[in-house]
């Protein structure tokens, strides 16, 4: 009888989740987690930016030059890309987080509400990311 019963697949791993089509709310959620990790890993860089920008006139010039002349072997546009990643991470994490607080306060946890609030979060965070990114890359 054992050979006619299918082998059980075992606990689901993160890699198995990539085989499924995730609904919008799930994509927002995993990106919420990912953006948190990105900000955690770049935290020393964030503190460094605060340190150099606020400590003295001289260090402030160092801070601004990192975006033009680059840092070590990294060109300026590369540094700007990293900062853009940070901007997106913060905005996404913020919007998805507010969505969590909204769900906590209003109990709007139906499938439809989850879907629409996720779309709003994406729209808001991505729009602001594009706007701030354009400013960062000197488009206006």
């Amino acid at each position, binding site marked *: 009888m054992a050979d006619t019963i299918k082998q059980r697949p075992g606990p689901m791993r*993160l890699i198995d989740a990539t085989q499924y089509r995730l609904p919008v709310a799930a994509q927002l959620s995993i990106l919420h987690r990912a953006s948190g990790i990105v900000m955690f890993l770049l935290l020393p860089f964030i503190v460094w930016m605060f340190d150099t920008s606020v400590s003295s006139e001289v260090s402030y010039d160092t801070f601004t030059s990192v975006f033009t002349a680059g840092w070590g072997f990294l060109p300026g546009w590369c540094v700007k890309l990293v900062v853009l990643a940070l901007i997106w991470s913060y905005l996404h994490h913020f919007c998805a987080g*507010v969505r969590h607080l909204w769900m906590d306060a209003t109990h709007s946890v139906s499938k439809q509400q989850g879907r629409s609030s996720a779309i709003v979060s994406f729209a808001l965070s991505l729009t602001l990311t594009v706007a701030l990114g354009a400013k960062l890359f000197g488009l206006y």
Partner: protein
Amino acid sequence: MSINYGSKRIVTGAHYGLRDWLAQRITAVLMALFTIALLAQVLFGGPLGYDRWSAIFSSQWMKTLTFVLIVSLAWHAWVGMRDIFMDYVTRSLGLRLALQVFTLVWLVGCAGWAVQVLWRL
């Protein structure tokens, strides 16, 4: 179900969980309020150069608020990272403990550096 009572209680779990769940939300609100306060000061005051930027952080109340932000961020990030390790590092307790220690050192180090910057001004 895992056996986690008595001598099998793990130090790398979430314990009861409610305190940290609430702390993540409260620190989130605190940080959001700080963001708005900082954004308002940055946007409304004319062109931003070194003088105006450093002046923002020179007042005692702003330093204190920023300190609250730093502590809030450290706790918020700790809960987040601990949850991630709990979800994905399920088989090795030793690895999870090591990652938690690394996370704490990372966060305390960054927090200390930021506080030093603030009170050097």
